[in-house]
């Protein structure tokens, strides 16, 4: 316990400066900025995107500083992050998750698979990306996309549109 405390105090802050917000998703998603609850659904992903999402949640990127949180239930979520090409078995579960979310809500597709099926495109077991199942607000391309790319996409949604407020951050 004492060793951990000493280690924590010696390490200092690890968080890196925020990347520039991407220009892709329209904003703002919600009437209240500076807060976003995310539900992540793995729709047949190879788990590379999940590793990047885990890295995103770590101390280096710390989406908490923007008010971005991953939540345990679609009922609490504003945003659905989908990874994977949407395998046929996950299609209904994905639609159910989307239906369980309260309005206002949006979907972001993470990775090339979620964009259009990626390397699984054309397989009998998958749909062609998230857009073939749900309305998608924006796509973060990459195989897998880096945490910084995901974060800049989330930033665009969660930060107020005026640049002056961004300077303070």
């Amino acid at each position: 316990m004492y060793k951990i405390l000493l280690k924590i105090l010696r390490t200092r802050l690890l968080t890196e400066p925020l990347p520039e917000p991407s220009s892709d998703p329209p904003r703002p998603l919600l009437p209240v900025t500076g807060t976003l609850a995310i539900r992540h659904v793995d729709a047949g992903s190879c788990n590379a995107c999940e590793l990047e999402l885990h890295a995103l949640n770590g101390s280096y990127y710390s989406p908490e500083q923007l008010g971005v949180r991953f939540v345990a239930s679609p009922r609490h979520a504003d945003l659905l992050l989908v990874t994977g090409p949407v395998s046929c078995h996950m299609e209904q579960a994905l639609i159910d998750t989307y239906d369980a979310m309260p309005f206002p809500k949006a979907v972001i597709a993470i990775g090339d698979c979620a964009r259009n099926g990626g390397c699984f495109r054309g397989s009998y077991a998958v749909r062609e990306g998230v857009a073939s199942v749900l309305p998608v607000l924006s796509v973060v391309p990459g195989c897998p996309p880096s945490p910084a790319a995901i974060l800049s996409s989330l930033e665009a949604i969660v930060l107020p549109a005026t640049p002056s407020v961004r300077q303070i951050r």
Partner: protein
Amino acid sequence: MKSFWVFLGSSLAKMVLVVFLAPLFVGWLNMVRALMANRTPPGLLQPFKDWGKLFTKEIIIPEGSSMLFRWIPRIVFSLLLMSSLLVPMTEPHDDGWVFGDALVLIGILSLVRVLMSLGAMDSGTPFGGIGGRREMMVGFLAEPATILVIFTTYLVSHSTMTFVTADSLQSGSILPTPSLVFGGLSFFLILLGENARMPIDNPATHLELTMIHEAMMLEYTGPSLALMEWASAIKILVYLLMGIGLFFPWGVTGGPGWSGLLPAFGMLAGKLFMAGAILGVFETLVAKLRIFRVPEFMTLAFLLAILGFLSHFVLET
């Protein structure tokens, strides 16, 4: 004797203060936790943003749920707000016009627990049921310890009113004794258990199978969820105020009349600041207990309470 209107006005003012103080405290606690993870913390006002946003969202009522599910967030919120009137915050104790003692407070809190569990079971999801049952288990293990702690303070101050105990400790008519030290330690463990804090329950978990408190929240949406989360924040604040009143009451009243209010607020803010820092650091340093170890943890709280109770007779009379 205060007039009824003064009592009404000060009670309303206190409730309003508690409503706004609770998210601030949770914001501070989350800041400490983030700092202990070596990451840039969210702002102090983050809970206001999070819950304010929830009020703008849609409410989804699960199929097959009854009126209970719709009303429980409001009832739980109001009950917890009412329970905050039973703990000393800044006001000097006046005679009359207090509607209950610490035992009434425990009663209200167990009523809240029962209602929350019922609401969770009413939604019909298996996780809600798991969460409700676990919360009841932690509750019934913590309750005897809480009552024993209150009886210990009764032995010392001859009153189960938290106000009277705070007053007599503060005015120096009774001194901190071994029994109060044991009681304070026991109360700390109870506070962790009852408020679903770290060794018992991880408030940030996503694994439904390890959840206790969060599992009961899974089905609430929008304003209902905001009320439930706000109520949990008020609950932890009420527990802290009770702990402060029973074991660290120095400075609860700054002086007679209105002039004493400002230093009293300063002391209160300082104590809550310290409490948040201690809780945050403690939660970072301990690992979550398995659910089957929770009874042992609560037994420890009960044991400490018993020790406090007995040490009064052995050491202090």
